[in-house]
């Protein structure tokens, strides 16, 4: 079990949170990454997942008072990417033959592209940890970031998640898996927190633990469940935000004590408590 407890002065401090969320049924809305782009020509390479990632990171960096200068080699990026998005029109183009395929599709489908765009837009040249695909992996990314900060390998970490779920492939995926999910509940979201090593002013991580239960994915798929409580009262996201659920909740709550529990469909159990002043 990976478990981190305590509130010693050296604990990491949350100095900024940024998020962007497109609720179920709002698939036509698009976040605008242009204000954050360092190379405007790279806009054409971006899919929605990349846009969500850049906007969330940009807002988190602004909230942390770090906007402007490249963040450099002492900043690390710890990012969870959701299931790979794929639109029906792109699927149709593949079936139509090689000549019909848009070359930019390749860039939009590679799972490490959101990390690239964040690094390029904000000048992050330090270490990274890029993982996949669900809410449990955010805990693993958070854990890696906390350890890198504690070891002095970095001065600050961007820890986040991005999901583009309102599309043909991901909706299909959620309809067919065990314990299926209605496409009408899926959100697109990006959410990023900025962590620095304490002491300092900001939010704190009071508890954070994760365990895993090996299982048979065919005969014994875990039943997913996730809860949030804010100052003891139940809290709900507007839809299913997948990997981005916890950082998105932190962004939406903004202030208070957040308690999160997770039993993920890929076999993880996680629990965490945050205090946001």
């Amino acid at each position, binding site marked *: *079990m*990976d478990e981190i407890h305590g509130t010693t002065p050296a604990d990491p401090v949350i100095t900024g949170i940024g998020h962007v969320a497109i609720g179920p049924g709002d698939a036509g809305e698009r976040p605008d990454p242009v204000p954050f782009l360092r*190379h405007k020509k*790279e806009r054409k390479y971006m899919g929605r997942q990349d846009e969500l990632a850049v906007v969330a990171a940009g807002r988190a960096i602004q909230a942390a008072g770090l906007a402007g200068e490249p963040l450099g080699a002492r900043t690390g*990026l710890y990012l969870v*990417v959701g*299931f*790979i998005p794929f639109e*029906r029109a792109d*699927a149709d183009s*593949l*079936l139509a*033959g*090689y*000549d019909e*395929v*848009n*070359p930019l*599709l*390749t*860039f939009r*489908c*590679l*799972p*490490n*592209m959101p*990390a*690239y765009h964040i*690094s*390029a837009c904000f*000048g*992050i*040249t330090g*270490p*990274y*940890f*890029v*993982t*996949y*695909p669900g809410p*449990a992996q955010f805990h*693993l990314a958070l854990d*890696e970031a906390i350890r890198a900060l504690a070891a002095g390998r970095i001065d600050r970490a961007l820890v986040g998640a991005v999901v583009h779920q309102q599309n043909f*492939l991901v909706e*299909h*995926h959620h*309809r*067919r*898996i*065990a314990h299926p999910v209605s496409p009408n509940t899926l959100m697109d979201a990006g959410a990023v927190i900025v962590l620095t090593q304490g002491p300092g002013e900001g939010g704190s991580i009071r508890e954070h633990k*994760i365990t*895993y*239960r*090996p*299982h*048979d*994915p*065919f005969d014994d798929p875990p039943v997913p469940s996730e809860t949030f409580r804010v100052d003891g009262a139940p809290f709900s996201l507007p839809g299913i935000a997948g990997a981005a659920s916890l950082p998105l909740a932190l962004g939406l709550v903004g202030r208070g004590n957040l308690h999160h529990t997770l039993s993920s469909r*890929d*076999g993880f159990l996680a629990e965490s408590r945050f205090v946001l002043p």
Partner: protein
Amino acid sequence: MKRRVAVTGLGVVSPIGLSVPEFRENLMAGVSGVGPVTLFDADMLPTRIAAEVALHAADLEYRDRKVDFALRAAAEALRDAGIEKGGPGAGLAIALGLELFSLDDLAALSRIGFELPTAARDRMTFLQTPSDLCIPLLARRFHFPEPPMTLISACAAGTDALGTGFSMVRDGRRDLVLAGGADSMINPPGLGGFSKIMATSVRNDPPADASCPFDLRRDGFVLGEGAAMLVLEPFEAARARGATIHAEIKGYATSFDADRISRPHPEGDGALRAMRGALADAGIGPDRIDAVNAHGTSTPLNDKVETLALKRLLGDRAHEVPVSAAKSMFGHLIAAAGAVEAVAAILGLKSGRVHPTINLEEPDPECDLDYVTEGARPHEQEFVLSNSFGFGGQNACVVLRRADGPR
């Protein structure tokens, strides 16, 4: 306190061998695994060659080839380590390719009007996103109950998996890690997508000559497929149980280029930062590196920039340190590349040889290091640097050490 980390098990499924002994023999002999694409009809593509694993549908348990590759490599690695199963304290660090789906699946879905398949097993495997299957199958079959880590940093992911597993054993978070990568993108969307952005070689004839890292004629990488798994455990624990220690992992670091999407940083800044970071993590200077296991993709820009970055790293020794690129033989295994190439480097450390870089016949003036072109070169090594530089500027490096230290 940091623990020393031993590699005690190796397993490989590759285009040049379905086991470590077969892989080692062909690696050192400079055998190419590149041939015409047989997994699908590639006639419509500019690139019609690939490095395929010699396993056919009848040999496979799962629709997704990479799942079988991973399971086979894991079984070999654990058998090699003398470990039947993991147990408490054992976890996975796995790099996975996440290509979308096979076009066969998509075509089948189209034929049924994009309705859901009905059989339970097909519901899990049809149009699958692979980590849904690969990670739980590995964890359950080999009893690795700690939270598994999935790395998806594209071409750097295999090295990231190895480095993440190394860090977890060194820090005391895990007592046993199965680390590695598995990938297969030799399907229409995979090979077609890379062809569309002109990343792959179009030197289709003869296929075996196409992957030529550091050669003036290089025009892109050759797509490969496969898997490698490595068993990592604390050095002292491995010694205490009498395990064969193949090598130590001494350092690991990552970096971003934070530059342009379609090219490496022109001065190799990101690559250099990762290499220096890995050496610092290992507690050694560049003067201690005895050989470099290069990323060496056979793309025009990568090989030139990697050469430049190595010159900046090694300084006056740049022309004295043997450099070799295994992709010349088995192509680019994408998410699995770093893991398979780490196995290649470890086999070199153990045998006192550096594997060759085949097909380097017309030297590029901008690639002027001591590439090993004459066949496997006898060369005692204590430390080897192994590089993986991902598309999108994600760079990962590990430092490997011979198990018995200096000679």
